[in-house]
């Protein structure tokens, strides 16, 4: 079981971002392959960035990104928001994920995802996220993800990190 004595918040936001970058991107093969960057993290909140790359394009004539990379980033970002709230770390998995594609992402520009876990119960966590390209009022996509908590397997370090890195700090 996870040792609560490890629950000491890291001192700076930079340290925290670096730690989440390591656990949610560098050591998760698909997130690493996409080149996902952790931008910010706080209790219940997570933000990631996906840079435009020619391999991720869905339509070669327009250079617009395919939906898949956005789906993977939004899934990962919602999962990271859940991890920041787990008082008693346990394995969890995506139960369902809805993506609304509001507009095509402008080619060549990065896409930023911002996720919030707005409700967490013993068994289920509810999240919402938006993806935008600098102006949150002009989203590329919106997501709603539900996560099942206490799924089989052992808790990964990424799933246990919220308490360790953020502790009991209030939502910013």
């Amino acid at each position, binding site marked *: 079981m996870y040792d609560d004595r490890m629950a000491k918040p890291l001192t700076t936001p930079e340290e925290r971002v670096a730690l989440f970058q390591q656990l949610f991107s560098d*050591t*998760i*093969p*698909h*997130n*690493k*392959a996409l080149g996902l960057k952790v931008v910010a993290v706080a209790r219940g909140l997570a933000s990631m960035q996906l840079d435009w790359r*020619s*391999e*991720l*394009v*869905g*339509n*070669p*004539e*327009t250079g*617009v*990104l*395919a*939906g*898949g*990379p956005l*789906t*993977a*980033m*939004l*899934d*990962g970002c919602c999962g990271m928001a859940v991890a920041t709230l787990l008082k008693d770390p346990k394995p969890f*998995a*995506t*139960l*369902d*994920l*809805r*993506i*609304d*594609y509001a*507009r*095509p992402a402008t080619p060549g520009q990065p896409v930023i995802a911002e996720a919030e876990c707005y409700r967490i119960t013993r068994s289920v966590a509810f999240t919402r996220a938006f993806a935008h390209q600098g102006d949150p009022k002009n989203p590329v996509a919106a997501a709603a993800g539900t996560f099942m908590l206490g*799924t089989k*397997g*052992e808790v*990964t370090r990424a799933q246990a990190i919220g308490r360790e890195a953020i502790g009991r700090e209030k939502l910013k």
Partner: protein
Amino acid sequence: MSGSLIKRLAEARKKGDVARLAEAIPYAKWMQIAPENTTGELLTRMRYHDSLIGNTFLPAIHGGTLGAMLEMTAIFHLLWESETETVPKIVNITVDYLRSARPRDVVAAAKVTKQGRRMVNVFAEAWQDDRSKPVATASAHFLVQSPDDAEPSL
């Protein structure tokens, strides 16, 4: 708009080789997602490679990649099975995750639930070894006409 994909579609139809469609989509090539019709049924396969992993501990394939391949499955189905002259534009997709996907190929099939004049509802289902045990299902909406409604987002 999307001339190369529509041209590729016409070529693929003539040769009866649906796999050519994936060659026109950089993301599908990168992900190793391609349609196949070897059994007479149109299926889409995501070949296993290590960068699909989302959980190294189980290990399991990243949920985002399952959503992505279900979306591609629906797109390939619409391109191949309908008389479309335009690339379908995805409006939204809802993915249900039913089982964790193991480090093996994932195969999926799609069907049109409702064909409207402008909007199509598609259901897609993905499995690994046993088709009766799907790993994920999805339902998605696509705009299939009225290019004025939205820019192509495929």
